[in-house]
């Protein structure tokens, strides 16, 4: 029983891990400098922001929603953090609490409007994308806010281990996210809602509070991502993280999360984040131009989704052909 379980887990993540290993292999062969500890440390310390967003986004996609506002919410919480810490001298802890509350509130508003009124979350969060970006500029007066060492430590490797606290917290978020998704009533309801909301309703379950909460969680994750990015750059940048929502969606989709809801895994999304970042770093190291980097990244996303679709179709056929 236990062995077949291990086997199943391997099959579930195997394809993604092979893709990741192949990428590492290709870059290691084509660049002498790639296969070094320092490369992996760099990668590890660059991914926390995207990882936090991907955790929230996975849940949102599973309930058949989408959250386009995460980049703006990241910037907004970063701005709140910067202003409170640099201009008002707050401690990092209390500033973080406020930043997460602000982003969590915005996410909850996304959920309330889209779930409560049945408006596609695509539209609602697109609106929030603009609103939060505007609010960011209001809060910072459109100026970058330098914070410095008070926040930098969070994004820098600890003395004894090469990982930053941000990376450790991000990995924790992945583990907790996966646990919530697979081991709690909340997670089970999310999958059920994304699969067939009407069947959930007819089973006597009120689905709206759960779906709204998912958007709220996505907001909270933006708060953490805001801290991660601010600590890495020592600065709150009102024009930062533009377009990162698409990277987060791409990571989830590469990980096999369905845009049609009901299917997804936080760990797979994390591997998706790793694939994207390895690709970025590797391509930069072998000296590919920015333009070509974009072309290659786009191709990898489409091919990954294509392979997943083929795998599912093949799986269906082999089952029905029994």
């Amino acid at each position, binding site marked *: 029983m236990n062995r077949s379980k291990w086997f199943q887990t391997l099959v579930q993540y195997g394809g993604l891990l092979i893709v990741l290993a192949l990428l590492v292999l290709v870059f290691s062969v084509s660049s002498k400098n790639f296969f070094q500890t320092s490369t992996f440390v760099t990668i590890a310390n660059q991914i926390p922001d995207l990882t936090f967003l991907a955790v929230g986004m996975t849940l949102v996609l599973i309930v058949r929603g989408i959250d386009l506002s995460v980049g703006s919410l990241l910037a907004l919480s970063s701005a709140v953090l910067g202003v409170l810490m640099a201009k008002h001298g707050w401690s990092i802890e209390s500033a973080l609490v406020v930043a997460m509350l602000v982003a969590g509130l915005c996410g909850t508003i996304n959920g309330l409007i889209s779930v409560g009124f049945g408006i596609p979350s695509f539209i609602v969060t697109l609106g929030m994308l603009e609103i939060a970006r505007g609010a960011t500029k209001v809060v910072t007066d459109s100026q970058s806010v330098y914070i410095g060492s008070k926040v930098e430590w969070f994004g820098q490797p600890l003395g004894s281990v090469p990982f930053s606290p941000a990376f450790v917290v991000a990995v924790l978020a992945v583990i907790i996210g996966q646990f919530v998704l697979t081991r709690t*009533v*909340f997670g089970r309801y999310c999958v059920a809602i994304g*699969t067939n909301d009407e069947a959930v*309703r007819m*089973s*006597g379950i009120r689905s709206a509070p759960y779906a709204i909460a998912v958007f709220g969680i996505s907001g909270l994750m933006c708060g953490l991502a805001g801290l991660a990015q601010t600590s890495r750059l020592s600065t709150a940048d009102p024009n930062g993280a533009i377009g990162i929502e698409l990277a987060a969606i791409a990571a989830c989709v590469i990980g096999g999360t369905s845009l049609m809801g*009901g299917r997804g895994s936080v760990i797979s999304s994390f591997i998706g984040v790793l694939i994207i970042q390895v690709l970025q770093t590797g391509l930069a190291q072998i000296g590919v131009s920015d333009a070509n980097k974009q072309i290659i990244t786009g191709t990898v996303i489409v091919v990954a989704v294509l392979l997943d679709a083929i795998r599912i179709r093949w799986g269906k056929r082999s089952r029905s052909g029994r």
Partner: protein
Amino acid sequence: MTETTLLQTTELTKRYGSVTVLRDLSLEVRSGEIHALLGANGAGKSTLCKIISGLITASSGTMQLAGKIYAPETKQQAEACGVEIVQQELNLIGTLSVAENLLLTRLPHRGGFLRSRRLHEEARGILDRFGLSDVATFAPVESLGVGHQQMVEIATALARQCRVLILDEPTAALSGTEATQLFAHLSELRTQGVAIIYISHRLDEVARIADRVTVLRDGKYVATRETSSLSTNDMVALMSGDASSNDGAKHRLYRTDEMAMQVRSLTCGKVRDVTLQVRRGERLGITGLVGSGRTELLRAIFGADVATSGEVVLADQPLGCRFSSPSQAVAAGLAMVTEDRKQNGLLLSQSIATNTTLSSLRKRFSRWGLLRRSKERRVSSKMVDELEIRCESIDQNVATLSGGNQQKVAVAKWLVRDADVFMFDEPTRGIDVAARRRIYRLLESLAADGKACVIVSSDLEELFETCDSIAVMCDGRLVETFDRDSWSQEKIMQASFAGYVNPGAGT
């Protein structure tokens, strides 16, 4: 009136898997006649019409149109041969204008550019010809009432040149005057030599306009008669057959005197002023024609649609209430197995275990919000064994199960949750005999446990076998309730058609 045979079907048979819905059906339709098809739910009328109009193909048998072999594989082929069908469901595109819908397959254009003036002129002509001069050609179809939409749909078919016209319940949504207009056009087409196949539940209508009537029962041909030789009562008698299934020998009564649920004057959309009660241990059947409001009644009781008036009283809550969501109804002790298990009964892409425990996660399978997975697996394995669900494991996706086993999973979900009143909507539709038997046994054991069961079914044999009493719905109302000693197929059919036979009692 000409007496030449235009359309001839010979031994048409249609099978879905092991289920035969149409058996050796031979029918002959003359040009210049209105030929009515009669039969109870599931008699095979719609299947026959779909075969004739190319929507589905027969498993065996042949057809001839004007003496030539006729075997349409698509609706387009049938239309090319001059066979048109107007189905019960509307096939209009709501956001397009009336004119665009009328001429959708032959929009006037010049080099791909729409000739708007011509379009509206042609459409105006068609509408005026059918007495729809009050309908604007540029109005989006969705802005019209259902009656007008139906008329536009019929006009669309009539406007094309056709030799055979099939109408499936065309008057269901029409007002009296609209129906009269329709009948006038049909007689006109008849004089032009068009053969019209006409399906309707409204027997008075059939008696008024049809020349001949063919009756089907259980997918088989029963008789063809001149309409003038039949009364509406004769029609009902032909449809129901003479078998009075009153073999109560094996039936055991578990009905107690304790009230389980009372529904008082419930009104919700189509459902009007329905009062019924069911006792603990009772199995109450509800039947009626398709569209008589049976499913809507269950949905209104369950809070899936919110009733506008009336109340539901449950045994332990003497104060009546109207449920505004299924979650309230479930909390109060109701369960409902829905008719369309794929649409709203099951999570198809999830496992058997997930589906069986869905309704009871909070109640039985969690502690502090964490799933108790081993208990979940134990209970769903037990259900799989008990209901004889055929599967490889409880982790198998429900989508990969057969219909009967899917239905067992849908039922298992509520058995695990437990309730005082179980409502079943068409519990055995489309499932095989073995699964059906298992569900009947289950109904019996629920009754033996003192649960109240409400079973909606089109299959009278099923209700005769399983129920203690049968309520009949007609046109949104509950018209009559029969007990085992008083029911017969014919009485129930009479009651089902009651609202349609007597003008004034219906709409």
